[in-house]
């Protein structure tokens, strides 16, 4: 029980120590492509995008969005009614797919309710609930409708607390909110939590849902495309915003010997450059990827596919290409899957980690959707058409405002 996941190599210098892989025993994903991971896999295989002209609420922006259908009709369970908001509806919808509930119940039975942790990443939590409440302010006093249920819907731990109460768990809980790297970092915190011995399983996930703040905010930065986003394209014109929820059950390998897939490494860094623009040469991105490789004890040639952050913003894709090229040259196939899901912001990390797992399970390298002509300045190997071939290890990048970077390596677990 107390076997350490810490490797033999001591921490020294700047190199991240190699780590023992963590079992990813179950996972689930819901987004604009549909509920459950099969919906995402099928859309990837059929090259069918989830992006559509913006039809969210009364928002009149000339852009495409990845909206999850029917959330309006899927309230959260009655006993957690105070938590009801779009963000938690999306979280609940995801939890109910892919047998994930059963897997959590089994972990709870096996380890105890206090030994299962919940770590969820989100950028804006349920801010839509508060945004809409501001439209209902009392014209005389300015007061908001009451009760607002701010803690249950909007405070940043709304989603992890909802998940915890949904499963009636009492283990450690944490919300991580580092913009668009949030739900990649849950894997790092989850690994450390398991390594510390304070829990035996971690529900690591992420959820971010459509709201006015991000749609109008990214518009104010002139980062939103007026067509479905075209990652790495010469004529890329910005991002398409999406919404998504995904969860993974992490366990130590000896306790999940049947798990075929795992987390092999993670790397975290910051750019220390600018609040909303990446370092032009991708120095922080390179550092995150290098740290992930070091932790996994892998070399660049061991990676079969890189799922890029690839937002289709001019600066992100260019900086990321430079960083990837320096580390991986021009041989490792790379693509962004944001042409399918849109940029799901705080949920991008978990969304693309799970896409990476699906690519390994099904031997798929998805070619970048909507990308017609790769930017001639780019030197990494951007794949445009789907390829079917064995994929053993995937690196996934997630970079956010504040220069916050996280890279994950998922892979087949050797038996």
């Amino acid at each position, binding site marked *: *029980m107390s076997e350490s996941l810490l490797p033999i190599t*001591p*921490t020294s210098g700047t190199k991240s120590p190699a780590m023992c892989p963590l079992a990813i025993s179950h996972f689930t994903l819901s987004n604009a492509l549909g509920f459950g991971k099969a919906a995402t896999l099928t859309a990837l295989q059929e090259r069918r995008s989830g992006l559509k002209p913006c039809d969210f609420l009364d928002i009149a922006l000339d852009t495409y969005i990845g909206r999850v259908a029917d959330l309006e009709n899927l309230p959260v369970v009655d006993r957690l009614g105070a938590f009801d908001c779009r963000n938690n509806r999306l979280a609940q919808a995801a939890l109910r797919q892919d047998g994930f509930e059963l897997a959590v119940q089994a972990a709870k039975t096996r*380890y*105890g309710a*206090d*030994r299962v942790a919940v770590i969820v990443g989100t*950028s804006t939590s349920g801010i839509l609930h*508060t*945004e809409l*409440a*501001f*439209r209902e302010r009392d014209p005389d006093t*300015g007061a*908001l409708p009451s009760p*607002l249920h*701010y*803690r249950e819907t909007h*405070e*940043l*731990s709304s989603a992890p*607390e909802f998940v915890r109460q949904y499963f009636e768990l*009492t*283990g*450690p*809980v*944490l*919300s*991580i*909110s*580092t*913009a668009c790297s949030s739900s990649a970092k849950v894997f790092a*915190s989850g*690994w*450390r*939590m398991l*390594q*510390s011995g*304070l829990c*035996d399983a971690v529900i690591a996930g992420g959820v971010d849902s459509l709201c*006015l*703040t991000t749609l*109008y*905010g*990214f518009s*104010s*930065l002139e980062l939103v495309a007026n067509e479905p986003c075209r990652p790495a394209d010469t004529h890329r014109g910005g991002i398409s915003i999406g919404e998504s929820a995904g969860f993974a059950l992490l366990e130590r390998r000896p306790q999940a010997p049947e798990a075929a897939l795992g987390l092999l490494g993670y790397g*975290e*860094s*910051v*750019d*220390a450059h*600018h*609040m*909303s623009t990446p370092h032009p040469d991708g*120095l922080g991105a390179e*550092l995150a990827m290098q740290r992930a490789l070091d932790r996994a004890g892998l070399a660049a040639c061991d990676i079969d596919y890189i799922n890029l952050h690839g937002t289709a913003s001019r600066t992100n894709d260019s900086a990321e290409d430079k960083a990837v090229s320096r580390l991986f040259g021009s041989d490792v196939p790379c693509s962004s899957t944001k042409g399918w899901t849109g940029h799901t912001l705080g949920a991008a990390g978990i969304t693309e980690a799970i896409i990476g797992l699906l690519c390994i399970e099904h031997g798929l390298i998805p070619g970048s959707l909507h990308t017609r002509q790769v930017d001639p300045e780019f030197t990494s190997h951007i794949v445009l058409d789907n390829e079917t071939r064995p994929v053993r290890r995937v690196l996934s990048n997630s970079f956010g*405002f*504040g*220069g916050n970077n996280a890279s994950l390596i998922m892979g087949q677990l050797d038996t």
Partner: protein
Amino acid sequence: MNHPSDAISSLKPVYLDGIGVFGPGIADWSQARAVLNGSAAFDLDADVPPFNVADLPGTERRRAGKSVKLAVDLAAQAVHAARIDPAQPAAVFASTSGDTNVLTDICAALATDDRLISPMRFHNSVHNAASGYWTIAQSNRQPTTAVALHNLTASAGLLEAAIQVVSEQIPVLLVIYDIPFPPPLDAAEPIATLFGMSFLLRPERTEHSVAQLALSLTAASESPVDTLSDPALEALRTGVAAARTLPLLAALAIERNEATNITHTVTLDYVAPRVLTLDVTAITDAVDSMRNAS
């Protein structure tokens, strides 16, 4: 259903090398210490001192909101007290709602007809704004995270930082900070005042270590959450999520000498039905000289 009897509920101890505190009438650890020792009175309504944001470059100083300035002041206090290169530690920034002013401004603007929000306000709205400004100021590329857990944010931040120290064997800067919501959100989510604290934690003892902290998750039935006898300080503890660490700061504030150098156990609230207990052992110069002699 029950977990194995050898289930681990304690972390390997970490070392505390630097402390920062900021709040009404409190600009640093020495002023906080006087208040917590009872040698100075605390007034929840006292003026908040000016922020010391000398570490921020001019451009960032102009762009930063109040919560960022609070967090940067606290971060600088802890790293300077610990005599560590500010580019070296990883960082955990913990706050329940981050920049409540920016959040309120954005929600208000989005309820108007034109729905225009400024780009700067938007990028300042992310929960990791403070860590962004801090790492830019210090050219620090180490991992930084931003976390929240409502009223349990302080305990969650302490736990995340200590786990990072133990698991990664690296120094970690922990900054816990909150500012109140302006109207109308203050009615839905009351935060009594502006308050924050910071620690620089290390995996090994250094010549600057002031205490050893051993964190455990314990049954609440075995260890009730500590409160403060001074009503004003207790109002601060219960009124601001970031101030839930006050019993820990109070234990650290006790003047010690060799004879009284014992371990104090502090209990902070955490996810029910468990609490976060910390065994706090002060490291005094007297202990240092004894160890050096032996």
